[in-house]
Structure formats: structure tokens, C-alpha cells
């Protein structure tokens, strides 16, 4: 069976403020410009999740879409939709919520939950893309070291717990 890539789109709306805590206020203003506005601003984000696998011989599907939807909604959409990324999402407590970093965080969250939500599903996460606006789009491969380091650390925590 040939491998097929399937992409599913999700939307969420959040506020953020680009501010690096290790930099001075003046440096933050210079680097991030209007994105450093102390009151924050927001975006309607469009998230594309791409999975790769062989279509199941019986169902003709790469994976059960309802399981993928449930996973993405639980780890990304529900925690982030109508939320403030800086103050309500743990990873951004000390990390500027640029869409580069948001892409890493979302890919890690999906990648970490994958084996628990989709056990026995042969399809794998290929990449995600986040559209911040129609003009700015960020893409990260699931194989990127930034995503894998996070997932391996989570697996380690999981093993320690059990």
C-alpha cells in the first residue's frame, strides 16, 4: 500500500504579547515592535496537522479522523482557544509566544499525546503548519530535534511516574 499524507485543519483564537523576559523593555520594544504592546493582541490561528501512513485495507483511511480530532482538540484547541497564551499556557511562562515557538509547543503536545490516544495506529505525525495571519505561515516537521527533545523528555517523565 502506498503511503498517503492527510492534512486536517483546525482553528483557534488566542491573545499573546511578544516579550522575552531576559531582555530589557527597550530591547523588547525594538525587537518585537507593535507585537510587544503591553496589553497584548490576538490572532485567529489556523492549524494544519499532517499525518502520513498507509490507508487501512478495510476502512480506506490513514487513521480514524475522530481520534485525531479528539487528540488535537484536547491538547491544543481546547487549552488555547479564547485564551491568553502568555499567562494561560504553561510553556509560555518564560518563553516568548512567537508563532515559531507556538509551532514547536503544538507539535510537541500532539507528538507526546500520540502514543496514548492512538495506540496501535501505524500512521505517524508528519508535520504541522500554523497560519498566524493569511500572510505569515510557520511549518515544523515532527522529526525536528526541537519537537523530539520535548517528546523524549515527556516519555522520560511518564516512565518515572509509572
Amino acid at each position, binding site marked *: 500500500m502506498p503511503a498517503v499524507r492527510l492534512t486536517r485543519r483546525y482553528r483557534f483564537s488566542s491573545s499573546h504579547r511578544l516579550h522575552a523576559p531576559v*531582555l530589557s523593555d527597550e530591547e523588547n520594544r525594538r525587537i518585537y515592535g507593535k507585537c510587544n504592546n503591553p496589553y497584548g493582541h490576538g490572532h485567529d490561528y489556523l492549524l494544519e496537522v499532517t499525518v502520513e501512513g498507509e490507508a487501512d485495507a478495510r476502512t480506506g483511511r490513514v487513521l480514524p479522523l475522530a481520534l485525531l480530532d479528539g487528540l488535537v482538540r484536547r491538547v491544543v484547541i481546547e487549552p488555547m482557544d479564547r485564551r491568553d497564551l502568555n499567562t494561560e499556557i504553561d510553556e509560555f511562562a518564560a518563553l516568548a509566544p512567537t508563532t*515559531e515557538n507556538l509551532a514547536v509547543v503544538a507539535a510537541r503536545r500532539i507528538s507526546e499525546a500520540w502514543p496514548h490516544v492512538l495506540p496501535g495506529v501505524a500512521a505517524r505525525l508528519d508535520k504541522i503548519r500554523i497560519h498566524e495571519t493569511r500572510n505569515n*505561515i510557520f511549518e515544523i516537521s515532527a522529526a525536528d530535534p526541537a519537537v523530539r527533545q520535548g517528546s523524549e523528555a515527556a516519555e522520560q517523565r511518564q516512565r518515572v511516574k509509572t
Partner: protein
Amino acid sequence: MLITRRIDFSASHRCASPQLSEAENLAVFGDEANPRGHGHNYVVEVTLDGQADAVTGMIIDLKEVKTILEDEIVRPMDHRNLNHEVAPFDSVTPTVENLAIEIWRRLEPRFAMTPARLHSIRVHEGEDLYVDYGGPR
């Protein structure tokens, strides 16, 4: 990680090769060879490759990307006639393929001086046609 910035511009052109006769140009390019020209709304998606900076969380300052795209694409090409006003289209046919190659040639040295590298470009000519170009291989 890849980052894509999208911009648009509108320009007129006529697709015809000086190396072909008028009849051959009409046969190859059809309506695109209309001697009085016509125009399109072009959309350019520029994809850059890089790593997010550990402090700023940014691959590259998007304001700088916008400045480069305005300098190299919008200012010279928007509301222009490509054949008459934009080199090298006085001698190269301004097909969407050649436009993508020319845009790559203009952008590549500008991004070589930034933290990101030019990865690929996609040029849409109207709603239903686009080309992808990843540079000379």
C-alpha cells in the same frame, strides 16, 4: 523550521518569445500572446528555512522580510508592465515560470545576509495556476 510570507502585486504582461514568429507565439501562448497585453493578480509565497532564536523565539524579523519583499518584488513590479519595465523581461518571456526564477534570483542574495535561508517560492498567477521553484539545482 520553515516560515512562509505571502505578498501580492498586480502587473501587465504579454507572453511571446522574440525567437518565434507571431503565428508561432499565438500557437504556443494563445490568448496570453495578445499583442496589447493583459494583466494578472500575482501572489508570491516566499518560504525561508531557519531555527528560532533561543532568546527572541524568532527565525527572522518579519519586518525585515517584508522590507526585502517590498524592495525586490512589490516596488519594481506592482502596477508595472513586466515586458517593458522589469528586466530581464524585455528579452525573457514573462511566463509565471520565468517570473518565479527571476524573483528567486533577486531574493536569494538578500536573504543570504539574514539568519534565514531562501527555501522555495510559489508564484500564483490568478486563482488557478501556480508554480513552485526551489532555486537552481
